[in-house]
């Protein structure tokens, strides 16, 4: 335990873990092999996920913002996570809440928009404010902050994940990985208890989302067997149940379901009081709910029994997901070695007894359910940034099936839920009209039969198909899901062998242009224009690639033949020259060229790693060698050089 933190300018930036929660957010890092959360000046690790927009343009995040919620309900966004990746007319926007929703104009991306003091902000921008505040907190503590692992609910769909990545981008945070929250919790527990073996269920009930994940831990490998949940179910729904009773008794019952007809101040006041009542009932058998109204206060006593009856339907919805997850994992509750409880809402006594009912055992709460996710994220960040010797590895799955809409609006599932990631699968299509040169694919996510009942992800338009008779073109469309759980689609036309361009229009998300525009608007990048920023980004990318390639060549140039080596050397020199000349477009071109030239080397190194793994050799040695050269050094050096070139 260090008493004094001396700033070491040569120290590598510390990788961090971020829990971007519905109710509270946290940031953590690993010191001396142990994860710890960053505390604020009141020694509180929690940053309330509340963002308040002031009339003078300032933005406040955290406890201070939460205090403004009742007086400025429309401009104080609480639980923004519930709106991430959602469209402007999503049912969530019609649940009890005080916001001023702005519908997208024609041509605008279909995302939720909040009207605040004449401005319009999207959930991505609001979340970015929270992330910025967390980064600041981390910087205050750690001086230099490195890349981050950010957690997302396991049940978050593609749009919600992409929104999270967009928010990080706006906040200027480099994302190493999006990590599923239950898996993060398992990481924190697994390492806390030493290398244990077993099968665990993680029951994660937060403010707005519920996740149930079944995973096995064996020899440092965390393998998710199945995952399920509900990304619109959480503690907030318990608050609403109480709030609705209060509103009814205030004589506003008929309008309780349509929040727009109740004064936003009152709605926020009632929700806040409801939450306080819920907390009070954790340890007491009854509690008084007090809502301050101008003039008389509304008071109402709630007993634990009454509270339980009100929230039981909310909690029971978690049961279905739990049973299905167990079935998907082909495991009985009795065969589990433990159930880990994550998320503040698991403190509610009824939740704990429900867990006992469903799983036949007490849930584990050794690690603070509010902090465990951030700590797990920090552990993963530490591993991925290469500063750790720990070889714990995480194998996760897709939470929801991915498919395409076919004739008659039926979904054809391409990647079923609980498929291990990374995953890739190809599907063949052909044209249905003569000389058809374009093809549209509608990708949906979910388990229902009809495309309309599932979540629309995006429309992919394939262009450049050679004009052939109907049925003549052979299109192979490949769905790939990466380790972040994000989908990319590529297409090839087999008769010509040409890779088709796929234009993606996300159904509920921001386009790259939207994010670029937001970056321009934000204060972070007021200095320098978009081209300057792009140049710096490209230089960093180029330097990083050069270091990695030089190291790989130093180790394994023998794997290439003479011609290939010459080509690689040429590409290296060309990129170095472009960087020295600071020519943005040339750098981009040379990066692509070097990438192509090094592919054979990458393939052969990989083949060797595979051959070693087959032989049962200690693969970690090979991986260590590979990692040694490509560690954080290359990255920080690249950044430093790029900046140096700037000034």
């Amino acid at each position: 335990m260090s008493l004094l933190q001396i700033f070491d300018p040569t120290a590598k930036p510390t990788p961090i873990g971020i829990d971007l929660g519905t109710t509270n957010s946290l940031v953590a890092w690993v010191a001396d092999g142990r994860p710890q959360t960053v505390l604020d000046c009141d020694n509180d690790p929690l940053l309330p996920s509340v963002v308040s927009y002031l009339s003078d343009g300032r933005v406040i995040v955290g406890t201070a913002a939460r205090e403004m919620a009742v007086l400025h309900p429309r401009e104080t966004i609480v639980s923004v996570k519930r709106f991430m990746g959602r469209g402007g007319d999503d049912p969530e926007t019609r649940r009890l809440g005080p916001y001023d929703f702005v519908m997208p104009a024609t041509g605008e991306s279909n995302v939720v928009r909040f009207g605040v003091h004449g401005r319009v902000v999207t959930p991505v921008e609001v979340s970015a404010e929270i992330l910025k505040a967390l980064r600041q907190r981390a910087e205050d503590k750690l001086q230099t902050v490195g890349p981050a692992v950010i957690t997302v609910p396991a049940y978050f769909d593609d749009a919600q994940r992409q929104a999270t990545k967009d928010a990080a981008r706006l906040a200027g945070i480099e994302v190493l990985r999006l990590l599923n929250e239950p898996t993060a919790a398992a990481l924190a527990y697994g390492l806390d208890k030493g290398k244990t073996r077993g099968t665990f269920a993680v029951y994660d009930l937060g403010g707005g989302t519920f996740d149930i994940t079944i995973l096995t831990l064996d020899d440092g490998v965390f393998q998710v067997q199945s995952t399920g949940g509900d990304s619109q179910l959480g503690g907030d729904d318990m608050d609403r149940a109480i709030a609705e009773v209060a509103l009814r008794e205030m004589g506003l019952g008929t309008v309780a379901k349509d929040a727009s007809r109740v004064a936003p101040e009152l709605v926020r006041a009632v929700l806040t009081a409801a939450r306080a009542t819920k907390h009070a009932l954790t340890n007491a058998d009854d509690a008084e709910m007090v809502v301050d109204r101008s003039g008389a206060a509304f008071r109402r006593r709630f007993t634990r029994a009454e509270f339980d009856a009100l929230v039981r339907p909310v909690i029971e919805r978690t049961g279905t997901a739990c049973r299905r997850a167990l079935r998907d994992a082909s495991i009985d509750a009795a065969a589990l070695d433990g159930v880990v409880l994550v998320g503040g809402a698991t403190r509610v006594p009824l939740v704990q007894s429900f867990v006992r009912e469903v799983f036949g055992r007490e849930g584990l709460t050794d690690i603070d359910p509010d902090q465990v996710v951030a700590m797990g994220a920090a552990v993963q960040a530490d591993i991925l940034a290469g500063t750790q010797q720990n070889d714990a590895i995480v194998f996760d799955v897709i939470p929801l099936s991915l498919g395409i809409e076919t004739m008659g609006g039926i979904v054809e599932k391409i990647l079923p839920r609980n498929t291990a990631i990374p995953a890739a699968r190809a599907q063949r299509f052909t044209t249905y009209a003569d000389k058809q040169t374009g093809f549209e694919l509608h990708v949906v996510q979910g388990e229902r039969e009809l495309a309309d009942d599932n979540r629309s992800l995006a429309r992919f338009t394939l262009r450049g198909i050679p004009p052939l008779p109907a049925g003549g073109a052979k299109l192979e469309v490949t769905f790939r899901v990466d380790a972040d759980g994000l989908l990319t689609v590529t297409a090839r036309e087999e008769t010509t062998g040409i890779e088709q361009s796929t234009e993606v229009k996300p159904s509920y998300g921001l386009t790259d242009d939207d994010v670029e525009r937001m970056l321009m608007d934000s204060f972070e990048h007021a200095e320098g224009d978009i081209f300057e920023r792009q140049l710096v980004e490209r230089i960093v990318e180029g330097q990083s690639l050069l270091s990695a390639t030089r190291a790989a060549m130093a180790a394994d140039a023998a794997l290439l033949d003479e011609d290939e080596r010459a080509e690689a050397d040429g590409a290296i020199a060309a990129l170095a020259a472009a960087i020295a000349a600071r020519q943005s477009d040339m750098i981009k071109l040379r990066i692509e060229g070097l990438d192509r030239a090094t592919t054979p080397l990458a393939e052969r190194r990989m083949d060797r790693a595979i051959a070693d793994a087959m032989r049962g050799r200690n693969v970690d040695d090979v991986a260590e060698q590979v990692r040694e050269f490509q560690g954080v050094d290359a990255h920080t050096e690249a950044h430093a050089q790029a900046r140096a070139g700037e000034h």
Partner: protein
Amino acid sequence: MTSDPFETLGFPRRFRIDAANLAQRHRDLSRALHPDRFVQAAPAERRVAIEKAAAVNDAFRRLRDPQMRAAALLAFAGRPVREDARAAPELLTEVLDLRERLEEAKSQKDDTRRITLRDSVATRIAQSERVIADAFETDVAPTGDTLDRAYEALVTLKYLYRFLEEADAVDD
């Protein structure tokens, strides 16, 4: 994209496979290729790693499931199973009859009967799998009658496994 799952995971083209070995091999290969190991590496390596990691996952999925494993073996032997492969009339009749009895047992909430039916089908499944296992015992692919019998056995499995799913789906 369709590669040889046996080659990808380094197993001989046989039906009998040790589940623990298979899982271990999947784990070993996944560790070597997992994107987590290549976060800081050059894009070319990241790409190759993720492609191969996905291929390893896919191969595991196909070898782990007896039906898919059998389908792969038959495809390599030159008798791919068609999507619309239909069973012999006797099998169809048998399955229809089993279904009726299952419906009865379910509507009467007779769990004992349901389990008895289920277990009898499980036995039939084991028999069919034995036929396939014997056909694909060596590295020499089966031909003629042996191959035909293996093909029939797989078609039978398709119906029997589906029945098993129905028999096991109790609530939800």
